[in-house]
């Protein structure tokens, strides 16, 4: 392997990266699909005129996606730095 990084370090880095990937995608799947299965029930809750089921699809999930990506980017950075494989 090039870049002077040992195979063990690279593997440990990748297994942490994979775990972060799975966590992020589970959250993604929850807000992309799962929560919207319950739109009919959620619509019975109305906040400021917004039925909650409608709100989640129109705004709630979107906000989660934006925050999720920034959170993921900072977590991945921390992992890269922990194993000394980040860019200079």
């Amino acid at each position: 392997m090039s870049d002077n990084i040992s195979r063990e370090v690279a593997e440990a880095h990748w297994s942490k990266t994979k775990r972060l990937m799975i966590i992020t995608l589970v959250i993604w799947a929850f807000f992309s699909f799962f929560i919207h299965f319950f739109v009919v029930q959620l619509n019975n809750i109305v906040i400021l005129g917004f039925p909650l089921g409608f709100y989640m699809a129109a705004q709630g999930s979107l906000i989660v996606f934006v925050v999720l990506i920034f959170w993921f980017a900072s977590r991945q950075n921390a992992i890269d730095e922990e194993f000394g494989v980040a860019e200079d």
Partner: protein
Amino acid sequence: MALSMKGDFTDNLGKIYGIYVGGFFGFVVLMAILSMVGVPDRFILWSYMAMTIGIYAFIGIMSRTAVVTEYYVAGRSVPAIYNGMATGADWMSGASFVGMAGTLFVLGYDGLAFVLGWTGGYVLVAVLLAPYLRKFGAYTVPDFLGTRYNGNAARLVGIVVLFCCSFTYITAQVYASGIIASQFLGIDFEIAVFAGLLGILVCSMLGGMKAVTWTQVAQYIVLIVAYLLPAIWMSTVQFGIPIPQLTYGGALSKIAEYEQILGVAKAHVAPFTTYSPKDYFFLIFCLMVGTASLPHILMRFFTTPTVREARKSVGWSLFFIFLLYFTAPAYAAFSKFNLMGLFANAEGLQLAFTAIPQWMLNWGSIEGHQLVTICGVKAETVMAIQTACEAKGFVGGFPYAELKLNNDMIVLSTPSIAGMPIWVVGLVGAGGFAAALSTADGLLLAIANALSHDVYYKMIDPKADTKRRLLISKILLVVVALAAAFLARTKPSDILSMVAWAFSIAAAGLFAPLVLGVWWKRTTSMGAILGMTAGFCTTMYYLIGNVYGFDLTKGTGDEIVWFGVASISAGVFGVPVAFIVTYLVSLVTPEPSQEMQDFVDRLRLPGGAQMMVQGADD
């Protein structure tokens, strides 16, 4: 100046775009003043178009370049936040700007499948693809496929998929820019298409990705201001708070009341009135996976300086897209509330013929389109409407159910529906035009770069020098643009569903080989090639078979339907097929060479040099 610009330009981005934003607001204020002192409307609309296109052309010419890395990947010097804006403009097409709110207006909750599908896919981009593609350092998406899967077979399949999805998409953009130009400038559609084309070419031809990036940033600013301003206006007028995304809950409750009064069966917030739950979730899936596979989006993340910036840049991209998409439902709600109010507050719940607002007639009488229909006829004159309605037994006025608005006019007409002045109308037109141009430019570059870099340079003439490669690329750019314009001129009827098809095609053909190429070392070249082909062919077979049948004529009864899936969700078949075929074939073919496995290992580590060195002259 242009030659010494690079260093100065990227160092001074904040200042340059600060001045630009200030200048743009100054221009809008000037237009507002001119319209108040009675300058003709036509002059104001033309000024908006001329001014914005002039600016884009100026940026395009200033960013001209003869350096290959600048031409293909903007010199890899675009900071995350600016790349986010450029991606936002690249992403939000004429259809998003013009059609999204209209779709939500008509479909209510079910239309939110588009809002969800067109945002959530960025999580996949950030996690699965963008950082790794950036580390690799390719110029194009087929470039990555060709290297990871050893050779030109994979590259060629990638190019075919890229061409099919991007070309259908770009035709829709040229068509949209033609429609907007013809409506706002009052010129013939056929001429307007070529006017739009000129606007597109002037941004991309001289400076490639570098020029497109910096014009897209400028276009994003125009389109987001044009989208937010009317929504903020309506929110302030109706609820006294200038945050439409917060106040439209009030409009939603009012709409529910009006629906009761007017006896509208489909409630705006009720789910699954148009789509079945299956259609709804399949559509979200296809749009999301398609987002993570569209080459013109992926290649935007090749332009950041580092892998870290590439990740962050996906976050910024989604943030800037989010600003428009979370406003669209507000737009739809305010327009619906305004319109239903006309009927709910009228006597006998019928809008009197004498009270028909002028905008209905203005939009209704646009030639060649059925934008406003009342009692089944094109809303051209009060007389025509009255005759048609009386024939249906409505005397004195007509009920809400007899009014039909085309999806595509909701955003463009909202300023006039809500009684806003002409300078807002012109601003919205300029915004829609910016949205169509910026997406068209991104797509055009994706196609021309794949043809010039992958087909010509990598497959036909690997010895070609820089000058020749750039010349070929520019010629191809014009050829592809002209082809798209000629196709758009025939007004293909299915143009909007074709945009949704592009997502399914991209998802089925490209998602599996890209993701597995990074995440599963065991993926072999044969597996990827057969997987791509199988996914792409399955989706194309279903699309053509479902929409036209195999005599290629609509409605002749030989159309196929599998499990009742709609054609816009055709990707639900192709994506799993691509994964399964890639997996199975990879297992039965010998595992990739040690070098390839080391290559994937290096791809996964952000540090170390960029992997692909493109040649001494780059």
